[in-house]
């Protein structure tokens, strides 16, 4: 009933052959596929990560340039403002200067004109006095002289 002989060796050989065949045809084949799939999944994950990294880099670049543009914008506004202020100050002071010049020139002219008028009036009065004196000297009466003088003055006004 019990039989123990060299069939042990045959069975061991059988087992080793079976192991080799199963490894070759089952485990290796399935693992090839599983590994390939795993590699593909890993690759697509990597690609997705790369894409998102790129997008983030672009975004930060964009934000950076926006910041630069904003700064540039602020700076030019300030620049323009300060330049406009300077121009304004210049124009105002220029105008002030010019107007004071004009005023002083007008004053001078008015003074000159007033002096001229005064001088002429003096001349007129002097010549009238001179004439009146001449007439007085020439006329016979003081009263007629006086009347003549008054007529003369009325006629002038």
């Amino acid at each position, binding site marked *: *009933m019990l*039989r123990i002989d060299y069939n*042990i060796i045959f*069975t061991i050989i*059988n*087992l080793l052959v*079976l*192991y080799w065949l199963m490894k070759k045809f*089952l485990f290796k*084949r399935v693992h090839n596929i599983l590994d390939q799939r795993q590699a593909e999944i890993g690759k697509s994950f990597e690609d997705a990560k790369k894409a998102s990294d790129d997008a983030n880099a672009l975004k930060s670049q964009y934000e950076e340039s926006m910041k630069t543009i904003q700064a540039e914008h602020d700076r030019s506004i300030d620049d323009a403002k300060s330049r406009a202020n300077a121009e304004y100050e210049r124009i105002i002071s220029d105008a002030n200067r010019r107007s004071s010049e004009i005023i002083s020139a007008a004053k001078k002219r008015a003074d000159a004109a007033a002096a001229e008028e005064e001088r002429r009036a003096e001349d007129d009065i002097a010549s009238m006095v001179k004439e009146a004196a001449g007439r007085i000297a020439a006329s016979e009466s003081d009263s007629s002289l006086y009347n003549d003088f008054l007529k003369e003055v009325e006629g002038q006004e």
Partner: protein
Amino acid sequence: MKKMAAKLLEELNVDTAFTIPVFGGIEIAESVVITWVVMAVMVLLALWLTHGMKVHNPSRKQVAAESIVRWLESFVGGMLGENAQEYVPWMATILVFIGIANISGVFGVKPPTKDMNVTIALALTSIVLIEAAGIRRKKVGGWLKSFAEPIAIVTPINILEIAIRPLSLCMRLFGNVLGAFVIMELIKLVIPVGVPAIFSLYFDFFDGLIQAYVFVFLTSLFVAEAVE
């Protein structure tokens, strides 16, 4: 009754399937031939399952192949532990082989594991695997030292275990399958119709698969211990 006994004895015998006429005749046992059949079934099944596998859009067949391999690897890998993952294909192969061999009685052949030659061969490969795994992991010095662990006084027992472990593995499998086979043959002799089918569920399928599991579980446990 005598006829029954004779028939039973005949069923229990390990017959010689054929003799190779060299070196005075090499007698190939029946169990070896049935092992070939089991091997052929396993290899053809593997070839069929893994035929035309694709990375994308796997067929149902391929999904089945993948889940079988994954299940086997996680099942056996869990028992072996993370240090002994390289032995997973071997243990998985042994598990499937013993499983199919044990339930082959259902198909009307004598299970190969009923022959002590087969269980001895299985036990020998197991003990070689256990000790080889230990030597590979700990080198010869560490492996020799591991006999004196946890304390020096257990060294003789640890050395005895080299013989005891394969003996118990071999005898447990042989005894269970032989016992189940004897009971099934008795039932078949007494009531040939209907009843054997019910008992076969337990003795062939349940016990057969449990014994395959126990064999692989114990071997894996010893390997895991050896590579610790």
